[in-house]
């Protein structure tokens, strides 16, 4: 049992945590929720020995403890599994499991057989059918996530902190992960579960603690609370409808894709998007959705098929071609594909608009500033200055900067790839509103998303992909999670 009381922490004079409490019973799954910047990660990093607290007390099984390093925390059975996994892809599963605590005969000579044996037993215990000599990088992200848990168990962890563990997992992998977590819970192991996904919290957690602006807001037993109460506690106000209403007029076909094929990734993908329409694209991880988007945008070469804009065939070989045809692409991973993190907000917004903010190749600072200021206001980007670096923004604000970059190009077709991943609930709603405004202005929108409630709440029509093919199309009226999952897992269309 862990008790944290009166925890405070400041970085460079900025208070990040103010008198926060948190407790974790043995054998429970405890959700920790709050908007980005609420202090969840800092609180858990204190518990995991990565940061030290300025004030407050931590007790493990009633004994006060002081952690100076993650090693100290580990001695008390506390392990953090970070969002970015610490798996070394070129080592085997067994080597990963024993990383840093290898068994040796002495003089650094490894007891490989014994470790492989133990790894095998541990994997079996977790219900994993994986050979210990498998190269870790060959496993799916979901399996790697479970290997991380196995690593924690191997070091006798009693309290496991998981930060957004399902962000990169498919539905099936999430189910396997949850089974594993439940089994370990039955054995008395506790979990702290940090996530933005409300559905998951209601399906797996026992209790929830909510933070806002570095302060403790409250604690609830999951069966005794509901979605609206938690959201209200998180944002400190009633948020109203989760998905704002849209009154867009759906017009002519704007983008049409015919038999688009990239060998080995997807084949014969055909669909269209009309002006003012939001077409959702659902599917499991690896179904080929992002690849289709990248091909339409000219980032990948198609091996066959056609792209039509306004019913005319166009040749798109590079992103520059796509942009000439007024296509914009808000990429899936804003840190690696969307932003230059060291650039300021302003420089990032200009990136796709360099022609617009310059004359004869010289950047016009005034044009640049006025463009960025327009979008800072329109998209409600929270920043002290357009010169602030993109790196220092929260996930939601970073996402808005990527959106601003593309809005600047005045797109007529906008592809959004996981537009709200890792974005907190308040900013999510703002992004939905932006999408609605664009549709109302006649932009044809293709929205790829792995969050089914989001697809159902936002899309006029959903295309479902499975293993590189469009397996089904679901209209607004018949949209249910079950129906979409049916196609996403390879089910046939029956009409």
């Amino acid at each position, binding site marked *: 049992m862990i008790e944290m009381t009166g925890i405070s922490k400041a970085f460079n004079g900025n208070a990040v945590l103010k008198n926060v409490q948190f407790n974790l019973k043995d054998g429970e799954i405890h959700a920790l929720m709050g908007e980005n910047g609420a202090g969840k990660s800092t609180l858990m990093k204190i518990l995991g020995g990565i940061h030290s607290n300025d004030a407050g007390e931590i007790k493990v099984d009633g004994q006060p403890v002081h952690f100076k390093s993650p090693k100290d925390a580990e001695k008390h059975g506390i392990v953090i599994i970070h969002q970015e996994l610490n798996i070394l892809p070129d080592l085997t599963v067994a080597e990963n499991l024993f990383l840093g605590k290898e068994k040796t005969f002495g003089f650094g000579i490894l007891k490989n057989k014994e470790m492989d044996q133990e790894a095998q037993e541990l994997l079996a215990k977790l219900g994993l059918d994986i050979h210990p000599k498998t190269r870790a990088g060959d496993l799916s992200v979901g399996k790697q996530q479970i290997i991380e848990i196995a690593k924690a168990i191997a070091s006798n962890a009693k309290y496991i902190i998981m930060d957004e563990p399902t962000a990169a997992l498919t539905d099936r992998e999430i189910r396997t992960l949850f089974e594993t977590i439940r089994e370990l819970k039955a054995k008395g192991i506790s979990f702290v579960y940090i996530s933005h996904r409300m559905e998951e919290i209601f399906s797996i957690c026992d209790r929830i603690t909510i933070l806002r602006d570095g302060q403790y807001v409250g604690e609830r037993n999951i069966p005794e609370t509901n979605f609206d109460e938690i959201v209200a506690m998180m944002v400190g106000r009633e948020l109203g409808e989760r998905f704002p209403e849209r009154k867009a007029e759906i017009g002519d076909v704007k983008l049409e894709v015919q038999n688009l094929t990239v060998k080995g990734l997807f084949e014969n993908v055909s669909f269209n998007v009309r002006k003012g329409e939001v077409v959702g694209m659902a599917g499991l991880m690896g179904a080929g959705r992002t690849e289709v988007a990248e091909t339409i*945008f000219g*980032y990948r070469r198609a091996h066959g098929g056609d792209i039509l804009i306004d019913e005319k065939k166009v040749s798109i070989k*590079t*992103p*520059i071609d*796509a*942009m000439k045809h007024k296509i914009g*692409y808000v*990429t899936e991973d804003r840190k*690696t*594909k*969307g*932003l*230059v*993190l*060291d*650039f300021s907000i302003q*420089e990032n917004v*200009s*990136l*796709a608009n*360099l*022609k617009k903010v*310059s004359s004869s*190749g*010289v*950047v016009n600072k005034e044009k640049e500033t006025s463009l960025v200021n327009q979008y800072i206001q329109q998209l409600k980007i929270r920043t*002290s200055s357009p*010169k602030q670096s993109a790196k*220092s923004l929260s996930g939601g604000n970073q996402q808005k900067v990527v959106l601003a*970059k593309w809005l600047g190009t005045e797109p007529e077709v906008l592809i959004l790839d996981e537009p709200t991943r890792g974005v907190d609930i308040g900013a999510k709603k703002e992004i939905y509103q932006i999408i609605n405004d664009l549709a109302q202005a006649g932009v044809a929108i293709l929205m790829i998303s792995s969050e089914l409630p989001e697809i159902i709440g936002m899309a006029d029509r959903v295309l479902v992909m499975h293993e590189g093919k469009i397996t089904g199309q679901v209209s607004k009226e018949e949209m249910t999670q079950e129906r979409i999952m049916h196609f996403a897992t390879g089910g046939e269309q029956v009409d």
Partner: protein
Amino acid sequence: MTKSSKEMISKLGPLIGLILLIIVVSIMNPSFLTISNIFNVLRQVSISAIIAFGMTFVILTGGIDLSVGSTLALTGAVAASLLAGGTDPIVSMGVALILGLVLGAFNGVIITKGKVAPFIATLATMTIYRGLTLVYTNGKPISGLGDHASFQLFGKGYFLGVPIPVITTIVSFAILAFILHKTTFGRRVYAVGGNEEAAKLSGINADRVKIAVYAISGFLAALSALILTSRLNSAQPTAGESYELDAIAAVVLGGTSLNGGKGWIFGTLIGALIIGVLNNGMNLIGVSSFWQQVVKGIVILLAVLLDRKKD
């Protein structure tokens, strides 16, 4: 706000280092501060600074150009042989500059179209260009360039009392700083180095940007070659050996990150001056040339370590 002032201090670090270095050297040997010695230092620095300016562009994109020393030798030899053969000095210089541009662009093409790592590609062309120089000169220096006033002035002349190589450096610096900090091309250079994928997905032709920076680097190596050839009134087949390392050192001393995307050309100018003052100062103080290398290496290490500390 506090962040940007912190950034300012970290940017000015190299300048403060240079000033301290000048103070120390002047105290140990006051003759450092004579006009003739200062011009002497600046004239020496001009050659390495111009190469380092090009290197800054390359490093900002996350690349490296090891071939600059060999490019200098080859373009210098070609200019010298043209002059010795009686070609008009302006034409000779133009040919050398264009050759530098082409040799640099070739590096860029190998790196982008051939998808070869910059280190490997320019390591190979460093050897190739040096080899071509030896073949072209038959391994012998080229002298007897005649006494064309315009060419002589380029390395040895003065304008309003200032050595022309120093003026060439200042003008190059002004033009390049403008390109890097004020133009869309400069912005693209930083974007490609900061996040190539995001840059490409924003409609930037990253390959074209990279080919351009290597071409700039080759062009500037040729410009240095002309200054050097004019000063020596001959071209040596072994000219410019290890100049690439001095250029990289100047860039790094100036605070530009070898990972690309971060840095500025003013820092490189300061970096080149630090190396120049250090070399000259140690000569004045009478440090043996063997120890000079040790000291130079330590200074580079210290600069990088101090830069780390700030993060």
